[in-house]
């Protein structure tokens, strides 16, 4: 058993790290605006393609590709907020309308990507080559980087939202918009900030995914669903709840794959999530309100 368990836990850790990266941005927009950004997956895809163009086509190297991918996603995120979310702030049905407008953005981005980059599969080079061993389990260095990077990014976000002026303003706006405005916080600008930051996280996830999976226009579709499940399962709340849910789901998924195989794992996982939500309707780490 020992020989199988540790590699399984490591692959669970990798899954959890990816889920945490995917979901943290989605959770940030949800907790600031009360909006689910359905274009979050498409932003991941965009980040991966831009990184590929800069790295492979322009030959400028992985590092610059990384930065360009994250930056492009961030800009696209701010544009989505300005053009497709901001006009509906005053609307009573803002949440439902933005489901539609961000879904539209997702389609437009995906189709645009197909037109610009074509249907051929692409792949980014790994940020680092080689292998390392985690507790005796061999892992590619790139995957080890993801396992280390995800908690670092989450810790950075936690520090940012908890300790800095602009990070705290995101939380303030999420909790009480009028009160935030009355202490001088520019609420619409904070919404843009949330979208931009969230999209940057999506771009980062896309770039990291782009070297362990093939880049296709639909690269972000599955991660979007996964991220939404993680955010809802975590209790639609804080960053900590989202991160916790990501790792719980990642580890359980890896163990289920070990015990049941790939075929049944998604169904059993969903049944498990539904059962948890029956007994804890506010999510795994949600507060009863």
């Amino acid at each position, binding site marked *: 058993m020992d020989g199988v368990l540790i590699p399984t836990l490591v692959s669970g850790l990798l899954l959890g790290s990816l889920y945490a990266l995917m979901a943290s941005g989605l959770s940030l927009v949800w907790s600031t605006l009360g909006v689910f950004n359905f274009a979050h997956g498409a932003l991941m895809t965009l980040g991966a393609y831009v990184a590929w163009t800069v790295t492979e086509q322009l030959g400028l190297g992985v590092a610059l590709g990384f930065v360009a991918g994250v930056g492009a996603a961030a800009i696209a995120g701010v544009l989505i907020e300005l053009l497709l979310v901001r006009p509906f702030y005053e609307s009573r049905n803002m949440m439902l309308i933005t489901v539609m407008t961000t879904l539209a953005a997702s389609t437009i981005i995906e189709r645009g990507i197909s037109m610009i980059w074509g249907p051929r599969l692409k792949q980014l080079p790994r940020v680092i080559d080689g292998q390392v061993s985690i507790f005796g389990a061999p892992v590619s260095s790139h995957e080890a980087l993801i396992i280390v990077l995800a908690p670092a990014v989450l810790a950075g976000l936690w520090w940012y939202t908890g300790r800095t*002026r602009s990070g*705290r*303003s995101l*939380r*303030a706006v999420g*909790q*009480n918009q*009028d*009160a*935030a*405005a*009355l*202490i*001088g*916080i*520019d*609420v619409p600008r904070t919404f843009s900030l949330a979208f931009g930051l969230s999209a940057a996280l999506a771009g980062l996830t896309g770039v990291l995914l782009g070297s362990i999976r093939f880049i296709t226009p639909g690269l972000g579709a599955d991660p979007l669903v996964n991220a939404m499940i993680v955010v809802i399962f975590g209790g639609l709340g*804080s960053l900590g709840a989202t991160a916790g849910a990501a790792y719980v789901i990642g580890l359980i998924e890896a163990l289920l794959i070990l015990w049941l195989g790939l075929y049944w794992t998604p169904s059993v996982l969903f049944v498990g999530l539904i059962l948890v939500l029956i007994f804890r309707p506010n999510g795994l780490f949600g507060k009863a309100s």
Partner: protein
Amino acid sequence: MSTLLDVKGIHGGYGAVPVLHGIDIHLDSGEAIGLFGPNGHGKTTLLRMVSGLLRPTSGQIVFDGKDITRAKPSTIVTAGLVQAQQGNTLFGDMGVEETLQLSAFSPPARDGWKTRLEEVHALFPRLAERRRQLARTLSGGERQMLSIGCALMCAPRLLILDEPTLGLSPRLKGELREAIAAIAAKGVPLIVVEQDVEFLLALTDRLYLIEQGEVAREIDRDNAPDHKAIMDMYFGEQAH
């Protein structure tokens, strides 16, 4: 004395429902004024317009010589016009100290925030005791103290307090009123909304009675009404 705030002919309300029908109030620098009148007659609506949370359909609001009628709330706070809302929870999941620190948000409020935090603690020692507590676990009185404390952290050049003692016990009411009097004594220009006219008369220079979206009466110390006249204003003279 120069005019600090000039509200001229404000009309407006929520959607198609008009609440205010041409309100004129003004405040000179160094002055404190009070607003009173029955609930639901437009006091809070007026204050939301002054702070930029709601747009009037017509009229003009001038603060310190600048037209702020259509300014953003953040611009208005940066200019120094600060409002403490009625007893709300501010940011439920934020700590007391964190909330106060964040409130020194606008660029002019950032300098000297530590001194102001000490002043807020001196004024409301309860907030210093509860600095690590989350805002939603505070009592009604403590929430009100935090709300006023946050407004003070914004470095106000004009402070608006909307019913700061609403729903509090008589003992807490007294405590908060002493604190408000202490703020006024420091020379911060104030607009206070209260139901207790006697308290307002002791604290402020002039009062406006807001009724059915209009200024029904302006009162200063020279034409101060007696208790019976105040009751008449609230309940209508036909009741007698």
